[in-house]
């Protein structure tokens, strides 16, 4: 063996030196084969310490470096940088934790010293099997594919498009604008302030860096962050196909409304003048709020929470838009009596409660109720309900407007398959981390924004679209290369039987199957090095580049001696 391993033990002030007999450790380690030098130092992570290590690496011509100090979480990167600067491959290095896992845990000095020696010996036997892994750099394409031309897709496109970044905005309908285009007004209620939405649509159409592809759908997407290829089919029958190259994808496919046929007790589709919220928006936008008989309604019931129990979540926006409808009705119709039926009032935005107070002041009635039955009674709509406390009651109205739950849009599962994205139990796209990464997917470079992720209002959709842009603007800079993970998995062709177990466990879509060779292949640009595939392979054909079986066995066996 012609290794020259340098082992350096950090005293870490009193933290390690008080609790471990470092001199005894040095004595024991010095006699190990392959170890050229064993020394101690006061504080290796200090500037002095780092310089000392760099000098030692060069002076002693070390082939491997072992540092016994604190947690890798603290300083693994620090010492890897030292190796790099001193001309030693940073992966020919191992940091042994004799602080958090030894000195700080074991009160008996004898025992702590014995354990520290064990850990260091184990680390030394491992490090000799390390391979000098190399960082890779990949060129990227900075263009972006945005799927869905609603308010989220529009906002993402406007935030991203620029001189060095083209945006392809793919919309399955004939025109962009999504659901918002159908609305008659937005709160704060000032007549119609949809001009702002129309303005955004115009901005997209006039932006030379945004290519809008209407009547189009995404057929396939392959690749990884910085290097995706997508096939877009147009004209409904898919007669026109276009291949585009992009660096990132934003999914902004919006929502659908709960199927009211599943709650027949509300009379939708059976009783005249029972509308859903979207139908009412369209009716208001047309300027004429009329019953089927051509006359304006004199009394309206707005029923919230339709489908809430069935779906198991609150859709957040309905209380507020129902209040918007109520205020709109009062504004547009000379005489109208409005009653709102709800289970809980969900008004979490700063300004929401003000609208509620305004509605109450204007005589709009709010009744907390459930167990609805909407019936046709002598030409009028009878809304029967039960209030808290059990008492049953009913009112007769000309028109009923139902607020259905917001559900995933119909293409969600199809698109999820094309993009290899998970869905959660509500059927919406699943974010990587509910708290800290609410718009990312496990596929790096693919983000989701707006109602495609779950029910939300316009400001939140805009924020999420801008957040997706933020992440893309930060990670895909034109001209700047990206460095994928180094400690990835690799498959030994000769051992692979083509069972594809690994494919099924890969969370990141990093493994593909080569039909021609009949084997699985790891895409090192996507692989995050989690090792799930390694554990799943029945033939032992997959190994992690930095956690090989020999490395792990040697380390453990040495520790058990």
């Amino acid at each position, binding site marked *: 063996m012609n290794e020259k391993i340098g082992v350096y033990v950090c005293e870490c002030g009193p933290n390690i030196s008080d609790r471990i007999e470092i001199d005894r450790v040095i004595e024991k380690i010095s006699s190990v084969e392959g170890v050229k030098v064993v020394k101690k130092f006061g504080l290796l992570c200090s500037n002095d310490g780092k310089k000392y290590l760099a000098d030692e690496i060069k002076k002693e011509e070390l082939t491997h470096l072992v540092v016994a100090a604190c947690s890798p979480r603290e300083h693994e990167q620090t010492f890897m940088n030292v190796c790099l600067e001193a001309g030693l491959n940073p992966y020919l290095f191992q940091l042994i934790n004799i602080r958090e896992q030894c000195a700080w845990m074991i009160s008996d000095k004898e025992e702590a010293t014995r354990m520290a020696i064990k850990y260091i010996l184990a680390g030394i036997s491992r490090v000799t099997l390390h391979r000098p892994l190399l960082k890779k750099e990949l060129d990227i394409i900075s263009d972006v594919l945005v799927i869905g031309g609603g308010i989220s897709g529009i906002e993402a496109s406007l935030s991203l498009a*620029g001189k060095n970044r083209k945006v392809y905005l793919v919309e399955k309908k004939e025109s962009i604008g999504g659901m918002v285009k159908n609305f008659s007004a937005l709160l704060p209620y000032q007549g119609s302030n949809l001009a702002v939405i129309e303005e955004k649509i115009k901005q997209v159409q006039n932006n030379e860096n945004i290519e809008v592809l209407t009547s189009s759908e995404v057929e396939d997407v392959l690749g990884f962050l910085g290097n995706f290829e997508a096939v877009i089919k147009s004209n409904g029958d898919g007669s026109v196909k276009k291949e585009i190259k992009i660096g990132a994808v934003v999914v902004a496919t919006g929502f659908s409304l709960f199927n009211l046929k599943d709650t027949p007790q509300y009379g939708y589709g059976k009783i005249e003048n029972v509308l859903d919220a979207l139908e009412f928006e369209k009716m208001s936008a047309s300027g004429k709020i009329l019953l089927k008989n051509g006359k304006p309604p004199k009394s309206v019931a707005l029923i919230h929470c339709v489908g809430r129990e069935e779906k198991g979540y609150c859709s957040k926006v309905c209380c507020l838009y129902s209040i918007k409808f109520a205020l709109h009705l009062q504004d547009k119709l000379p005489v109208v009596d409005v009653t709102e039926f709800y289970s809980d009032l969900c008004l979490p935005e700063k300004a929401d409660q003000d609208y509620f107070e305004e509605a109450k002041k204007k005589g709009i009635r709010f009744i907390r109720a459930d167990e609805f039955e909407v019936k046709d009674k002598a030409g009028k709509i009878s809304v029967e309900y039960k209030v*808290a406390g059990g008492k049953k009651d009913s009112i007769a109205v000309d028109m009923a407007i139902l607020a259905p739950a917001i559900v995933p849009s119909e293409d969600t599962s199809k698109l999820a398959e094309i993009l290899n994205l998970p869905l959660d139990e509500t059927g919406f796209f699943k974010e990587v981390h509910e*708290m800290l990464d609410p718009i990312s997917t496990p596929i790096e470079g693919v983000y989701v924004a707006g109602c495609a992720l779950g029910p939300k209002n316009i*400001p*939140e959709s805009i924020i999420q679209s801008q*957040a997706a842009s*933020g992440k893309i603007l930060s*990670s895909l800079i034109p001209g700047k290369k990206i460095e994928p993970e180094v400690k990835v998995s690799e498959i030994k062709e000769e051992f692979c039987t083509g069972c594809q177990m690994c494919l099924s466990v890969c969370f990141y879509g990093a493994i593909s199957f080569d039909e021609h060779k009949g084997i699985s292949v790891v895409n090192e640009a996507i692989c995050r090095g989690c090792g799930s595939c390694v554990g799943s392979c029945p033939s032992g054909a997959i190994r992690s580049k930095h956690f090989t079986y020999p490395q792990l066995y040697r380390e453990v066996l040495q520790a058990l001696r």
Partner: protein
Amino acid sequence: MKKPNVLVIGAGLAGMEASLILAEAGRKVYLVEKESLIGGQTIKFEEVYPNMECATCMVAPKQQEILQNENIDLLLLSKVEQVKGSVGEFKVKIKKKARYVSLAKCIGCGACYEPCPISLENEFEEGLSKKKAIAVPCPGALPNVPAIDPESCLRLNGKKKECQACKEACMFDAVDFSEKEEILDLEVGAILIATGFDMFDVKKLPQYSYGKANNVYTAMEFERLYAANGPTEGKLVLRDGGIPKSIGIIHCVGRAEQGYCSGVCCMYSTKFSHFLKHKIPEAKVCEFHSDLCIPGKSHQKFYQKTLNQGIDFIRCEDIKVEDKNGKLQVNYKNHNGGKDIFKADMIILSPAMTARRDTESLAEILGISQDKKGFFSTQSEKLSPVSTAVDGIFIAGCAEGPKDIPNSIAQAEAAAGKILSILS
């Protein structure tokens, strides 16, 4: 020539997220934080809903990234004093208080705490415990370096100029009494306000007997009570030493006064119940609420799960808390209009989330306005929720209005994106 640097005010979740996105894009970020540690309010929690994930574990990797990122210049114990100029070239003055402990030399061993003769109330622990004049606010604080409170320290306040117990205990010569307050002049292209929130002062509502009855707690006090790194190490022990057997949680405290629903309290109150029932299975837990505000894909499911644990959710109004000879009693009007009572050992009040107390002064320094609810104004609440009326000044997180963690993170990412576009 637009300066590419960015000033981020506040190192809570929103400020940290935005800083990391900007740093990844190669921008230099000055992250200014008034406290001696980073992490904002989230690090005060033990768990976060709906998955009951360990809050400090969740935030720690982000905190570590902030501390180790070369593009982020972290300025602790610092406040913004003055802002001049305009987008692309703001000139900012930062006042950085002295820590009296070197961030470079200190390794956080804690040897200096014990010898210090002075104890004072620990604000981080909501006054539930004391800390020394040289201390970190809580175990696990990051950076793990203490600060000396100059008003309490005998040497610094002049009461015993020769005291240097902490300095003598330090093996790394990290204590430096000669450190001075600094004024830093920075030039940045954009500013992000991420200063977070405060909680409604429940003392303003005498009907809840807070401050009078011993065992009435605010939500934040309860968070510290159940935190594993808190004053009781997570043991649910009341101020008078007992273990609660009957707990009432009162929602919407301050809602009417503030004029808005804070959107997060129903969920965190449910989190409290869930935890209480888990820790003290025989306890009776009752939540007193008006409307249940639980939007979000997974929130109603969490509520349902908690309901199934045997927690009572009582819709009511006119809630009052009486101290009846050391025992607490909740008097309320139920949905039938009838009066009812609930006897409790412990009451937890869920107060409204409000703007920070210093919003007005910071708004003045930045030249932006406050909205009707006291938060910083955005350019258009509906369509430009991260921009302010001043070009180049953005806002993210609870500084803009009450919101939960995912929305704060998304808003921070959005603001960072906007900054990257205007400073490209």
